[in-house]
């Protein structure tokens, strides 16, 4: 009896050593039914076709896409004739610059957001102060540190340079004289002289200007909606897994990358927030990052709730094409401002390796340090959403290796 027991023990040990030393590929690439469900939910193939934006009836119109693309790259839409949307969102850099803080006419207080898969987002900007892509596109134009421009100047540029494109899409431009379009006029409480100039414009002309301005936003949004991720190595791997193509799985991702993926959807619980084919839940979370000393305090989502409700261009506004029933997100918005102090939107992780520096003010310079930041949060400092289990250095490297498999060229209207 005893003899046989030791023999058994010995053979077990030999097998254990064998398995550990060769990083047994079958174990590594075997996924449970639940894990497969999660993998499929992250797979690019699970991304539904681009939904039409009910608040923008031009959102999938090819003419609007073409016109929007012209506007996106148009430097004339700025106070110094040098800034366009593409200044901070350069097409050759995955539509996101590599600066900690976005820089247009001046420097902003937040990092440029990625534009990947924006068509699927409910809330726009880091704090979600806009509820549509077209309303979002209009924000930077009137920001003094971004385009440093005004809606009256935009109307002038459209009338002067884009009349044909505009009228083909939106119908005849309203009759507006030079006198109706004072250069520096916008409803901005931060700039009293521009506000005064705006308020002094007759009501119907103001409406006409807003109509041109919002149509311009809708065209830009139609173009931005076309910026989409393409299948990455991770997606190829999941596709192979779905087809039970074991040899292709092994060829597609290296062992470390698969181990990282296993951590990502398992122990490290990254999918709590980075869920779905765009690796984001689109929600707002305070992750316990300290406030940068050189910037004013930023309350994030907390301050944006009233802003989006009061926004002149929100889903329920007269410039929106949506019916009330299409505006559920706005109607049922969580107004608990206390809950969202210091909370910012979960960004997509697609192409994340191409997008240093990280976090909403570019506080962290590398992916490695981002992972260290999450690991080193002490239990008392993090909410339960951020429970990552105990991760060692090797596991962080594996997670990073996995994140690097999410890179792929972007697709957009050519």
């Amino acid at each position: 009896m005893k003899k046989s027991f030791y023999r058994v023990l010995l053979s077990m040990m030999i097998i254990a050593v064998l398995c550990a030393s060769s990083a047994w590929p079958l174990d590594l690439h075997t996924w449970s039914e639940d894990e497969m469900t999660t993998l499929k939910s992250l797979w690019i193939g699970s991304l539904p076709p681009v939904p039409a934006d009910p608040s923008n009836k031009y959102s999938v119109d090819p003419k609007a896409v073409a016109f929007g693309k012209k506007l996106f790259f148009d430097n004339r839409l700025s106070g110094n004739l040098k800034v366009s949307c593409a200044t901070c969102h350069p097409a050759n850099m995955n539509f996101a610059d590599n600066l900690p803080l976005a820089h247009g006419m001046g420097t902003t207080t937040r990092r440029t957001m990625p534009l990947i898969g924006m068509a699927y987002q409910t809330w726009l900007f880091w704090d979600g102060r806009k509820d549509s892509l077209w309303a979002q596109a209009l924000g930077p134009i009137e920001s003094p540190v971004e385009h440093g421009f005004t809606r009256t100047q935009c109307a002038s540029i459209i009338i002067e340079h884009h009349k044909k494109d505009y009228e083909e899409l939106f119908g005849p431009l309203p009759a507006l004289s030079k006198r109706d379009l004072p250069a520096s006029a916008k409803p901005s409480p931060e700039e009293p002289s521009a506000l005064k100039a705006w308020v002094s414009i007759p009501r119907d002309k103001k409406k006409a200007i807003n109509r041109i301005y919002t149509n311009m936003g809708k065209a830009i949004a139609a173009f931005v909606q076309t910026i989409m991720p393409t299948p990455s190595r991770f997606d190829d791997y999941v596709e192979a897994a779905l087809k039970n193509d074991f040899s292709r799985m092994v060829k597609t991702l290296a062992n470390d990358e698969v181990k990282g993926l296993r951590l990502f959807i398992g122990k490290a619980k990254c999918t709590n927030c980075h869920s779905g084919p765009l690796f984001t839940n689109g929600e707002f979370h305070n992750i316990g990052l300290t406030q940068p000393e050189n910037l004013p305090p930023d309350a994030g989502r907390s301050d944006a709730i009233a802003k989006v409700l009061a926004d002149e261009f929100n889903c329920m506004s007269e410039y929106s094409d949506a019916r009330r029933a299409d505006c559920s997100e706005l109607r049922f918005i969580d107004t608990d401002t206390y809950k969202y102090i210091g909370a910012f939107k979960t960004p997509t992780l697609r192409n994340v390796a191409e997008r240093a520096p990280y976090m909403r003010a570019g506080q962290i310079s590398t992916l490695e340090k981002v992972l260290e930041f999450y690991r080193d949060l002490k239990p008392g400092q993090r909410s339960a959403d951020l429970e990552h289990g105990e991760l060692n250095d090797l596991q962080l490297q594996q997670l990073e290796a996995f994140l690097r498999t999410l890179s792929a060229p972007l697709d957009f209207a050519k």
Partner: protein
Amino acid sequence: MHTVMIITFMFRSVAYTFIRHFVEEEIFVKTITVLFLSALLISCAPTAKNTRIDEKHVHEQGEFTKHYKESLFQLSEKGMYSVELVLKEPELKTGINAVDIIIHDKTDRDVVDADITVVPWMPEMGHGVFEKPVITERGGGVYTVDNIILIMSGYWELRITIKEASFVDKAVFEFRDVKVDRGHEHKMTEAPADLDLAAKKLTDNKMFNVSYKSMREPIPINRIHTWELAVLKADGSPVRGAVISLDGDMPEHGHGLSTQPEVTDDLGNGKYLVEGIKFSMPGWWVMKFNIQSGDKEDTVMFNLMLKE
């Protein structure tokens, strides 16, 4: 592939032999069981419970003084009361806690019959808890607060409001470093294995029979959607014109929904439309409905286990 299967098979048969070997050694198994059970008993035995404090206390030290040696002491914000807090165990921990609150006014009178509310709050996280603490007045200005469920470790406040007739005052006790109670951690943070996932339930006090149906199946993650709620009386007849409020919570994560859903329409025949529900992540969710019809009011909680 073949070698893999062979090795897996070998591994399995080896494991069987191993287990059989131990099972044969009956005495050994028995010893282990006894040891295990006694260890379990010892670990579960109550640890030096600090029982209730005595309601009777001496009033001789004058205005705003401590009456209990072991209490945390504070003046209320407007200076109307002194508030003493006695923890039932040496410190607050994650899980279920209880405290005694003792209130005196300026003249050192025991404050009795006051309306006391206690809200546990995490100022850094900006959230409280889902369950309300239960407050029992014990006389002599002593109020016992049970069921203080702290859902996570970290910086907590106990926000106490005292109402007497038209007077309202507050006191906040800070607990900078509430630690995880290893004994309760599992119970508090993980969904029980036998979670009742029924979509049709009797309300807590058996007044109504409530069922829900999602207009989207399976219930989606991260997508705003609509439910239909059906409310029946005990005899099976529909409850019409009820006033219904609701809230959602993720007990393991200590946060609620990312929207504020509402009952937006009475569809007739005891059916109600619930709009604006959105679950931001997979996992265990609890949806709580409060139903009011005439002079009857009752609540019901549904568990959901959502997958990607």
